[in-house]
């Protein structure tokens, strides 16, 4: 892929069609796309300025927060968690063991961004707040991280629809950022349990890494990633002191191999390079399989039709007894970490939607939330991944960013700190691209391939993201220790923790940040809310019962010579003669018993009876309508509780 006449080949295979998600195109064509996509948001300029500052810092100093802070020590770097405003308190509770651990480790540099200090989500027509605004509200401006103000390690808790990927990218330039989001509370609890067990228990993984490089026949993209990324990394990793490396390359990177690798005991570090599965916007398989790893089983672009499940490894393929506890994985694949709702690549105007909403990849979610002990983090790519990240035009293979990041991981750096090399590259490329685009604006003739390369590399570099806590690290065996990977007990967590449970489990003393005041406030009325919900549900049940019992009308008319002798006991009148009965069921069945006198219908009694019946029937209809209306208005509220 060199020279201006070369076709650019993109990573990502559309599972619906079996074709490339983005068809190969000439550099010149692609550069038109780039040139048509200028800075679109008001905060873009400020972001570029910050990227430039970051680039200067990285070329003139070293990777770290402000000078003198050791990124391997949480008591120096600090640690913070960012919730979306109005986040479900049950998520907070499920993460409590992890939060307690981090608070203990980070001390007075521990922060919780919840309540007033939480991330402010967007609403219809307006985006969520920018990284600049978020930091400003919390006392920090652009520049190196001062952990006394905002911690260096920041864990975002929330789906990317609520807290956008863009915010994460921006924050990640100076900070070390990770994100978790799960569909169930149990998964949050499982992840918290895994991290806590890994850092406080007996986990001691062997220094074993695996490099899984797919190269599908006739496919230029995976040939490139296999030859210029996976293979060089495998060779390089084998030279790292104390590490053994299993290579799954040269046709060995099959789905069965990967399943076996994870099932038998995943290596401490797993690197994969492959296509990531892509699906059309709204495809029923998109949520579950987008970003799944397309393995060697795919015969290549000659294969016709939809891609069967047997060709790729998705979250659904993570076995319930998989041994992934403590692993850190890195997937070079399109959508490996997640999918934004809107494409990062638009020719002009509004970016097209590529998914109904932004979401994290199912595979990393399953890996890190494994109930028997999950992977600690997965590094992956949001949106499409590009070959430019390891191959640079005439310079050829460029794997130093990968090697540097992986080296840090193998040496026990927290994953967020290890990823700083990608962030530094992003800062450099963004500044270069910005300058080049400015030149174009002022009439300079620029090689379209250069622009294409800068653009793709820029987007590629910024989109590497950590799924998981950015402060996790490989828990490796020390010299004389035995290797040990325990199997964790599956913990049971109610899907919606009851408010009373929440009240009893939330911290009694709010931590440092004023944001927790909100939790304290909710604590004091949470028991009250439970009682209100209980009362609402009782009324709902009462109404439903009323609804069911008024589905028939039964009118009886009696006569008696002496009313004082008439008694009503258990629904039956005694001391009176039954003369007329009408029973009407609302399903249409009706029974009528007409009074007679001297062989003729007793008109007088029949009229009285008929009028009574009409009244009773009208009442039943009215009651049904009222009860139905009340239930209908009540049910949505109760459901939302």
């Amino acid at each position, binding site marked *: 892929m060199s020279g201006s006449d070369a076709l650019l080949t993109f990573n990502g295979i559309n599972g619906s069609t079996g074709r490339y998600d983005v068809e190969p195109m000439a550099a010149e064509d692609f550069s038109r796309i780039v040139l048509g996509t200028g800075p679109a948001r008001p905060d873009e300029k400020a972001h570029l300025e910050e990227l430039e500052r970051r680039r200067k810092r990285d070329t003139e100093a070293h990777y770290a927060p402000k000078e003198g802070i050791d990124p391997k020590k949480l008591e120096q770097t600090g640690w913070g968690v960012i919730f979306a*405003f*109005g986040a479900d308190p049950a998520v907070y509770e499920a993460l409590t063991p992890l939060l307690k651990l981090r608070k203990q480790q980070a001390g007075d540099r521990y922060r919780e961004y919840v*309540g007033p200090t939480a991330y402010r*989500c967007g*609403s219809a027509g307006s985006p969520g707040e920018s990284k600049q605004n978020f930091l400003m509200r919390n006392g920090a401006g652009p520049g190196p991280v001062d952990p006394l103000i905002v911690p260096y390690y920041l864990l975002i808790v929330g789906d990317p629809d609520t807290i956008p990927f863009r915010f994460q990218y921006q924050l990640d330039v100076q900070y070390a950022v990770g994100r978790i989001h799960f569909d169930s509370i149990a998964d949050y609890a499982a992840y918290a349990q895994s991290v806590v067990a890994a850092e406080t228990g007996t986990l001691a993984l062997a220094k074993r890494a695996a490099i899984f490089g797919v190269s599908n026949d006739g496919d230029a993209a995976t040939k490139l990633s296999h030859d210029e990324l996976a293979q060089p990394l495998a060779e390089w990793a084998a030279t790292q002191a104390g590490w053994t490396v299993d290579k799954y390359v040269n046709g060995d990177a099959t789905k069965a191999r990967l399943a076996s690798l994870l099932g038998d005991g995943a290596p401490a570090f797993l690197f994969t390079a492959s296509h990531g599965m892509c699906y059309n916007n709204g495809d029923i398989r998109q949520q579950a399989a987008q970003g799944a790893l397309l393995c060697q089983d795919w015969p290549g672009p000659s294969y016709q039709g939809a891609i069967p499940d047997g060709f790729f490894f998705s979250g659904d393929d993570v076995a319930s007894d998989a041994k992934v506890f403590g692993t850190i994985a890195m997937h070079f694949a399109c959508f490996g970490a997640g999918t934004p709702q809107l494409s990062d690549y638009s020719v002009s105007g509004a970016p097209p939607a590529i998914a109904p909403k932004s979401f994290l990849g199912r595979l990393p979610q399953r890996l890190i939330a494994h109930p028997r002990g999950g992977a600690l983090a997965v590094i992956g790519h949001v949106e499409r991944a590009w070959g430019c990240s390891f191959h640079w035009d005439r310079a050829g293979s460029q794997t130093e960013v990968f090697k540097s990041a992986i080296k840090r991981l193998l040496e026990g750096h927290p994953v967020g700190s290890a990823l700083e090399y990608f962030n530094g590259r992003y800062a450099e490329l963004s500044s270069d691209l910005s300058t080049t685009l400015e030149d174009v604006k002022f009439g300079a003739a620029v090689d379209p391939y250069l622009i294409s390369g800068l653009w793709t590399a820029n987007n590629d570099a910024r989109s590497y993201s950590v799924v998981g806590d950015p402060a996790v690290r490989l828990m490796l065996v020390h010299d004389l220790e035995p290797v040990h990977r325990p199997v964790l007990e599956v913990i049971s967590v109610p899907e919606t923790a009851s408010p009373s449970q929440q009240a009893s489990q939330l911290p009694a003393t709010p931590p440092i940040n004023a944001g927790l005041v*909100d939790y304290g*406030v*909710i604590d004091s*009325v*949470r*028991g*009250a*809310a439970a*009682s*209100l*919900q209980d*009362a*609402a549900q*009782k*009324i*709902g049940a*009462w*109404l439903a019962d*009323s609804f069911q*019992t*008024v*589905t028939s009308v*039964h*009118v*009886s*008319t*009696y*006569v*008696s*010579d002496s*009313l004082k002798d*008439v008694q*009503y006991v258990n*629904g039956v009148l005694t001391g009176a003669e039954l003369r007329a009965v009408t029973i009407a069921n609302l399903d249409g069945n009706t029974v009528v018993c007409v009074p007679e006198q001297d062989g003729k219908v007793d*008109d*007088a*009694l029949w009229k*009285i009876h008929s*009028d*009574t019946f009409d*009244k*009773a029937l*009208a*009442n039943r209809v*009215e*009651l049904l309508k*009222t*009860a139905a*209306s*009340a239930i209908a*208005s*009540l049910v*949505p*509220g109760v459901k939302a*509780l």
Partner: protein
Amino acid sequence: MSVSDSHLDTIRQLRAEIEGIDRVARNSAAGAGLGPDAGLSYSFGLFSSISPFSNAEQTVAEIVSSVRAVLGKLAPVATIETSGDGMTVRTVVQYAGGTASVWSDATSFELATVVAGAHLESLGKTYALRAAFVGAIGAVGGALASISLAVANPLTVLHALASAKALKLALERLVAAVEAAA
């Protein structure tokens, strides 16, 4: 039992009042999601100036107690008697579906017609009162659900507690109305 128009008016008025409380609680919860900035500054102001949570649990306990009272006091059976010109008619209404009336065997057609009109009117009001109670109770349920949601949101918790207090007062009047109609 004897149902007057004022009984009915009271219950209908209470229902409307409770539905208003429901709307306020529901709107405050919905509004909090629309504008976080506005909601937050509003919320800050309140949080910094008052401490409204001291008697929240007591208020809610009283609401729950009133709900139980309303449901418990609604008799399953009503008996209506109408007398006129020495004649008495009695109707026993089972709200679960049965209605039984007893008339004098010796009643003349003309007399029966006169008394029947009055009796049926009473019967109609009895039914209407029941429907009004059901409507009011349904509204209480809706308000409870809305308040529960609003209580769970830090931005709307104060609105929720204000709504809870208003609901408590309305429920006390509803209990009294049920007792008066018994």
